[in-house]
């Protein structure tokens, strides 16, 4: 694949690797999003990029990262959470390589960490859903004060989203009921559609999914039942225009982009913690491309107010990862 004859070979080309997390590519969320950021950034910056998947990414972590360290890569971005503990040792063994880790803060002179405030974005979605579920002028909405959320697995990483969502809803109206369920799979859309359909039958009219590929089924179910879904990670509004109320963005792509850009531009990265949240637009809601007309102005204003409060620090959303489980969500 090397066609370096066109460019004048000065320094060896910069090389970056992206280690894909469990679930692999095709999860329609985290991995795919990070991958898209990686592809775009490496192309733009003329960096040679490779991604690595493994069905045994947990156990192969050490061998894999070491191999990457010895294979001429200047930057290695690791998406797999379970590699957190081994990364410092490996990074120390390969001091000339720049390492980056997502979703957790890892210390090391040549390690950059990227963190996301997913709970903040989910909080806004919960608040929005709570305000919407009583807008009975809308044919997709019933009078019940019920909304739903579906997680991919029962784990703190996912419950961080769920907890924020429930908190947001309850802060709007204590009496709102939030149905929760887990699909136990990130790959089976049938399961997602099944769970969503049940929630719709139980009276929910807005269901938020944090379930990757299984979530695709949630969105299909919303379309079929004339209800709303809320997407996650990427902007999923266009998957079923008008039936996806909004999506809670977690722009892993932006995080990856930042890291690749800095590396390509020879900017310092080591030891940095990149916090991405509402303020950066890396987390948040979409701008309601297809549902603008269905969401009353007042509601949109209220959501914006909440967003500003969080950014300013006036409002603090519960973070399951640091704080453990809150009263409104069982651990």
């Amino acid at each position, binding site marked *: 694949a090397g066609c370096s004859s066109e460019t004048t070979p000065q320094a060896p080309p910069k090389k970056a690797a992206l280690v894909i997390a469990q679930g692999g590519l095709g999860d329609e969320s985290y991995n795919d999003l990070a991958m898209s950021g990686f592809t775009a950034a490496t192309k733009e910056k003329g960096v040679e990029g490779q991604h690595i998947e493994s069905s045994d990414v947990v156990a192969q972590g050490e061998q894999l990262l070491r191999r990457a360290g010895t294979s001429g890569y200047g930057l290695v971005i690791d998406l797999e959470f379970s590699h957190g503990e081994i990364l410092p040792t490996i990074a120390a063994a390969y001091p000339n390589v720049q390492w980056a880790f997502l979703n957790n803060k890892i210390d090391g002179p040549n390690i950059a960490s990227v963190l996301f405030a997913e709970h903040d974005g989910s909080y806004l979605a919960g608040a929005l859903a709570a305000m919407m579920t009583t807008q009975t002028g809308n044919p997709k909405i019933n009078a019940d004060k019920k909304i739903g959320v579906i997680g991919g697995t*029962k784990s703190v990483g996912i419950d961080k989203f769920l907890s924020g969502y429930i908190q947001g809803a309850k802060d709007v109206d204590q009496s709102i009921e939030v149905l929760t369920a887990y699909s136990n799979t990130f790959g089976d859309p049938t399961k997602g559609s099944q769970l969503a359909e049940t929630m719709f039958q139980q009276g929910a009219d807005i269901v938020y999914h944090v379930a990757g590929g299984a979530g695709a089924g949630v969105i299909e179910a919303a379309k079929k039942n004339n209800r709303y879904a809320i997407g996650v990670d990427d902007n999923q509004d266009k998957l079923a225009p008008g039936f996806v109320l909004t999506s809670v963005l977690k722009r892993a792509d932006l995080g990856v982009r930042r890291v690749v850009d800095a590396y390509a531009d020879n900017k310092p990265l080591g030891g940095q913690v990149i916090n991405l949240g509402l303020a950066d637009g890396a987390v948040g809601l979409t701008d309601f491309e297809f549902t603008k007309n269905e969401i009353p102005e007042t509601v949109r204003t209220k959501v914006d107010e909440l967003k500003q409060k969080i950014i300013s620090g006036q409002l603090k959303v519960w973070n399951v990862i640091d704080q453990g489980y809150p009263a409104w969500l069982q651990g």
Partner: protein
Amino acid sequence: MSVFAGSNRTKYSRAFRAVVPFLIALVLGGIVLLATGHNPLDFYQLLVREAFGGTDRIAATLSAATPLLFTGLATAIAFRAGVFNVGVEGGFVFGGLIGATVALHAGLLAGMVAGALAGVLVSALPGWLKARWNVDEVVTTLMFNFVVAGVTGWLVTAFLQAKGVANSATPLIPQSSWLPDLLPPYGLTSAVLIALAFVALYAVWIKHSVFGYELRQTGLNTRFAAAQGIRVGRVIVVSMLISGAIAGLGGAAHALGVVHRFVDGFSPGYGFTGIAVALLGRNSAVGVVLGAILFGALASAGTTAQLFSDIPLDIVDVLSGTVMIFAVVRLWRQR
């Protein structure tokens, strides 16, 4: 004289039979690669380099082979007793969870023992059901894998979850309770020695111990064994318990040596690959070692090969699935 010729020929044909599935897989994989515009020879060369090209890569291959040594051996023992145990996966996973949890509080040795016991717990019921009521073990052990997956998931999130970790995971085990590394810095743990020791023990034990004899006879012909006074029910149960213990021990060794905790994605199906390892190795000790190294090499090389090529990892599944299918075929008609 003719007896000699016969045994030579079977030895030769046995080796040949073990190589053929591998060749078929390479040809089939080659066709897929060619059809999608890749050069199979280059890719296979890359695979070989990534599997065996240097101390670090050999360490990686052995490391990937280690869990397969445990699961392959656990499977082979049950198969030898005529019990088609496909539940080694469950024992491995449960052993990993319990091993990791116990080691957290009570140290390395306790963790290993607890892991083995956890594996025993998983295999005991199907074994007893088979021995006592002749309940088809293929189905019960297969079903048990799913049950164990559910129960471990629940145990982790409900009771054993580490704080501040985004995955379903137990807390990190303190370094003092890890299985020591063999070849620092290459991350090959002493688990591989434990596994090899057990395989060697199996080789001698199955052939030369009284219980090994009873186990072999039960597997070859249960009615015969029962009529000569071998307590086949007990043999079946014990073989399942040993199989489970080794599976669980493998899980604990994986937790204490490699992952240092129990976490989502702990086993990508080591138990199922173990079935292929046992069958490819015809349930013999040497065969299990070779089979584990083969599948370990495919796994480790397949992953790092991506650093040097654009070929999707899934091709490795095509290769190992094909090896599995053809591992057990009879390639010519017995005349």
